[in-house]
């Protein structure tokens, strides 16, 4: 049964005023999300044991982020996956504001892929703090379409779900996209095979009939860890693909060259009319701005982070900006420099000319803040999430199990943390909230890594407007 057909919930998810009176999921506009959203009380966070000797599956962590609660800052529920070895990474909703016009559709199901296992879990969050499995798509069903390594999940209009797939069934290239129907069954491959080679993240802007996709590498290349030989051999990505969203084919590919090595997270501005957006080129430590001009997309670096000398390193340390996000009001771009140990916010009210607003130096190899509440920080800030009102920024510290082991080996031994900063969007400032800390080192089966964060009522990295 699709969520659009589901009878009324006992504990309904948030519905908000829609001008046309339709009760779909999400918010009528980005500004409506800012105005109408209640403060987040629950966070969903990916927790991981893959690649350690802990004999337990990865899990969906339910984190209490309600400051009035007795269990504030604690993992209050863990939904263990049915198998070990998944590497939970990114995840997404069955519906967002892009389906605002679909009466009865609910933002109720989390689609949670295993990056290594190619298994796709669908979890029902009707009871927000007691999620349960709806269904599981086994790897064999995915391999049938000559795809593997599921990454980004976006709902697309009318209840369907699109997932970027980084490899073929052998973990080699080309990757592509897998489409699920509104009953969470595999519909098939969305793109013509071979339309792209490498894949990673994507975002679509339907009113502009465009989708952008980025490039990591073949799964067999990045799974075991980062090998500089693979960069020299051209096995890592450096291209952006701009798709004709309706036709499902690539219109234009931009080769970013050395300025755009390993382009990861892709974020359009939320304003549905905008053609502007950003991509973090992690290895080059550049933030790429893209936009349409004269009917064609263009891309160039607008923020460049310099390498820094470290006494224990033979070579300068790159910043490695591994995650970025755009505030719901499109006023700020936030990002994390995982190796350097910095979270930052840039004013992007002039999208082509970002202006540094503020940053916090924490964790990583250069962060000034080395511990929170007495807990040593053993990695830099990585996966970000922002409250819908733009006033609270949260982050976790794990990148990817095998890459953590290379660059922050203590992350696997001690587990990740989830931190929070209070943001003043009028003043363009951010301050670490030292009263908040979620310690994934204190889990029942042992220290766990923590990756992506989502809110039940939508967030700055999943909502798209039709």
């Amino acid at each position, binding site marked *: 049964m699709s969520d659009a057909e589901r009878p009324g919930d006992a504990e309904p998810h948030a519905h908000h005023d829609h001008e046309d009176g339709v009760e779909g999921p999400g918010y009528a506009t980005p500004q409506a999300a800012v105005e109408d959203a209640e403060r987040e009380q629950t966070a969903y966070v990916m927790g991981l044991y*893959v*690649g*350690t*000797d802990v*004999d337990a599956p990865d899990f969906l962590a339910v984190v209490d982020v309600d400051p009035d609660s007795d269990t504030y800052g604690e993992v209050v529920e863990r939904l263990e996956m049915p198998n*070990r*070895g*998944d*590497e939970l990474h990114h995840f997404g909703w069955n519906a967002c504001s892009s389906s605002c016009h679909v009466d009865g559709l609910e933002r109720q199901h989390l689609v949670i892929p295993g990056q*290594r*296992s*190619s298994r796709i879990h669908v979890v029902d969050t009707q009871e927000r703090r007691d999620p349960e499995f709806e269904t599981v798509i086994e*790897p064999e069903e995915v391999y049938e379409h000559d795809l*593997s390594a599921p990454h980004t999940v976006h709902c697309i209009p009318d209840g369907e779900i699109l997932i970027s797939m980084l*490899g073929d069934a*052998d*973990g*080699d290239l080309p990757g592509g996209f897998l489409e699920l129907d509104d009953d969470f069954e595999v519909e098939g491959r969305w793109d013509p095979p071979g339309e792209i080679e490498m894949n990673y993240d994507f975002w679509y802007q339907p009113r502009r009939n465009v989708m952008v996709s980025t490039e990591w590498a073949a*799964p*067999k290349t990045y*799974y*075991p*860890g*980062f*090998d*500089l*030989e693979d960069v020299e051999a051209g096995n890592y990505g450096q291209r952006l693909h701009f798709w004709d969203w309706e036709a499902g084919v690539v219109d234009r590919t931009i080769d970013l060259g050395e300025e755009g090595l390993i382009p990861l997270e892709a974020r359009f501005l939320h304003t549905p009319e905008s053609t502007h957006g950003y991509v973090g080129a992690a290895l080059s430590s550049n933030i790429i701005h893209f936009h349409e001009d004269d009917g064609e997309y263009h891309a160039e670096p607008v923020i460049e982070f310099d390498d820094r000398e470290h006494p*224990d*390193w*033979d*070579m*300068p*340390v*790159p910043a490695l900006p591994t995650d970025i996000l755009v505030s719901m009001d499109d006023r700020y771009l936030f990002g994390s420099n995982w190796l350097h140990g910095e979270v930052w916010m840039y004013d992007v009210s002039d999208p082509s000319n970002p202006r540094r607003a503020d940053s916090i130096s924490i964790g990583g190899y250069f962060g000034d803040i080395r511990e929170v509440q007495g807990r040593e920080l053993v990695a830099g800030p990585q996966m970000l999430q922002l409250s819908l009102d733009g006033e609270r920024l949260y982050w976790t510290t794990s990148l990817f*199990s*095998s890459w953590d*082991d*290379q*660059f922050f*080996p203590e992350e*696997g031994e001690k587990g990740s943390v989830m931190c929070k900063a209070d943001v003043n969007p009028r003043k363009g400032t951010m301050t670490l909230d030292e009263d908040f800390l979620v310690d994934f080192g204190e889990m029942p089966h042992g220290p766990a890594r923590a990756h992506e964060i989502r809110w039940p009522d939508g967030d700055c990295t999943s909502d798209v407007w039709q």
Partner: protein
Amino acid sequence: MSGDGDPDGAGEHRVELAWRDGREEMVAVGADETVLEAAEAAGVALPFGCRTGACATCTARLLSGDLVHRRPPRALKDRHRERGYVLTCIAAPMTDCRLDVGADVADDLVSNPWK
């Protein structure tokens, strides 16, 4: 040494699993089993991820004996295979074997390139 090809060492083989913290286990691996499958059947937890030979989460190092990979071990580069690294998810023993196992074995495959 390890190699690719169809296993012809039919029958059951004894595989010693040695962790770097000193722990050891012995599992009997049947003719149609991989090392990982036999360990799971015996209730011995080894790390794994894709189970197809693409991700290297299950990397072990062959200390003695002979085994074959049932599919190409795509996650391993030539330099890894030359040094005896194998993937337990697709590895079938041809003789009795001894393997260096545990999550930290996979960390041998790559190092921090800038440090």
